[in-house]
């Protein structure tokens, strides 16, 4: 089975094989939860450049990729990570300095764009965006769209309802499908074939996964296919969508992974501090990513005490009474 054998890879190998300079890419997770951080740090270590990144509200991973200079173009709904950075600071700086090209959508529009890619249709309709500048202001110019075959000719299309007033709707906004070269998601459980299970909220991970030509799944736990098939109602992604399975415990750290660990408030606060000026950020990049061999070494640097502090309570799925001030 061409896509089913030999998918179990080391993270370095999976990133090297599927994430190339200039790749169109999306990542799973939302703000400070279940971002595929181990893979993101590996992308930064491998020095990937000119990525075209599609994000709804992916938060931490977006800011780290932008901060490290990996991203050239960004289609996004929201660049923030909740209370730790209402606006992601490296993202803000990069946009203000004109270092990345950005085009804005809403969260639902981005979700539908991934869903359109997953469903194999060129667009999906919604009632978001009407009357707003999301429709009028394009981040990518008409000229760029014409020369770049990977961009649709129009950002969105406002159309009169072809069924008259059916559905009590006069106009709809059509948003174009996204299909990526590679998508990376982090899940709680997967097997070596690629069957994947997400616990808690799935965000838009399933749609993102299915809109990708190649899909890397990193997982907290690698389990047997037998275990996955014993409870298929919980599974979210079928193996035939998956190209690489990588076992990376704490692969979402410093963001949370429901049922396994919480986000690390200290790390996220420290990260926000580092982001505020460029020399500090360069120090951060060197000390926490570039001079580190791999995610295991990164976790050693973080230390078992910190990882113990954020360990999830088995009942609630997060770290109860964690100091988050």
């Amino acid at each position, binding site marked *: 089975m061409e896509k089913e054998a030999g998918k179990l890879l080391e993270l370095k190998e999976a990133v090297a094989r599927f994430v190339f300079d200039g790749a169109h890419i999306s990542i799973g997770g939302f703000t*400070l939860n279940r971002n595929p951080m181990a893979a993101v740090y590996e992308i930064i270590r491998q020095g990937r450049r000119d990525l075209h990144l599609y994000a709804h509200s992916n938060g931490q991973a977006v800011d780290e990729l932008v901060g490290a200079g990996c991203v050239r173009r960004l289609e996004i709904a929201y660049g923030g990570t909740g209370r730790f950075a209402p606006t992601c600071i490296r993202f803000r700086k990069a946009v203000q300095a004109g270092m990345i090209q950005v085009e804005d959508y809403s969260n639902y529009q981005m979700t539908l764009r991934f869903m359109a890619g997953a469903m194999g249709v060129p667009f999906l309709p919604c009632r978001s965006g009407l009357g*707003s500048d999301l429709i009028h202001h394009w981040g990518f110019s008409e000229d760029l769209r014409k020369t770049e075959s990977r961009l649709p000719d129009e950002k969105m299309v406002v159309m009169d309802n072809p069924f008259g007033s059916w559905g009590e709707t*006069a106009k709809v906004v059509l948003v174009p499908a996204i299909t990526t070269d590679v998508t990376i998601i982090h899940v709680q459980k997967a097997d070596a074939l690629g069957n994947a299970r997400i616990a808690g909220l799935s965000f838009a991970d399933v749609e993102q996964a299915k809109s990708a030509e190649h899909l890397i799944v990193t997982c907290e736990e690698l389990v047997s296919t037998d275990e996955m098939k014993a409870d298929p109602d919980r599974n979210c992604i079928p193996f035939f969508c998956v190209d690489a399975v990588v076992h990376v415990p704490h692969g979402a750290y410093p963001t949370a992974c429901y049922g396994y660990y919480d986000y690390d408030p200290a790390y996220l606060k420290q990260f926000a501090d580092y982001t505020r000026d460029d020399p500090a950020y360069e120090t951060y990049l060197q000390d926490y990513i570039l001079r580190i061999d791999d995610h295991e070494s990164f976790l050693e640097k973080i230390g078992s005490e910190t990882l113990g502090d954020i360990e999830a309570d088995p009942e609630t799925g997060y770290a109860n009474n964690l100091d988050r001030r």
Partner: protein
Amino acid sequence: MQDYTLKEMMAVVAAREIHNGDIIFCGTGISMLAAMAAKNISAPDCVIFFETGAIDSLLEEVPLAVADSRVMYRTALNGGLAEAFGTMQNRFTGKRVVGILGAAQIDRFGNLNSTVLGDYDHPAVRFSGSGGANDVASFVSRTIIFMKHEKRKFVRQLDYLTSPGWLDGPDGRKNAGLSGGGPSAVITDMAVMRFDEQSREMFLAECYPGISVESVQENMGFAVDCSRAVEAQPPTGRELEILRNRCDPQRLILG
């Protein structure tokens, strides 16, 4: 001396806008706290609901983002973004949803900017962007808006219209093709503004105790009708007790 902070006042005032049966779309920060306060104080049968897909979360601890694992515990259902926005766009359930939003700029029709200051292509200041705000403002029955009461935030002309309020007036939403209702209240650290049924223009409805109509108007970039202004009811002891002890005992949002 008042025995409450302005943040507490804002959370309580917003909570009072929420009724049993409402499905509350929550953002981060004070909007989440307002929903938690409503649920614990006056509207136990309202439903707290996040764009990330969590429905009726228990919220034993205050989440610091709408994707915080704390929103996933003991929900009615853990879905995803598609289901959440579908609920708001749906013709039957959408009518029950009340959205709580914030922004960097607001105009007199309650339109919001949370994207950029300055030119979109070369912004002076970049903010987070819409997130789900545009969707909520487009779909739901009504929205409640939190703002810091500053002149530079209440502007004649938005630099970027991220989320639609009443657009350019009474027929604005209809002409644009939007259904659903527009903003019903703007809650600031000084006052509560509402929108005139006819003109859809913002007017001053309530000033917080000790705050004058003049100072409210002085801190806005456009004139509002102040003739209907009354003094807002301060938080009761019970409201404050629940807000402080049950909703945010660590003062993660109340500060």
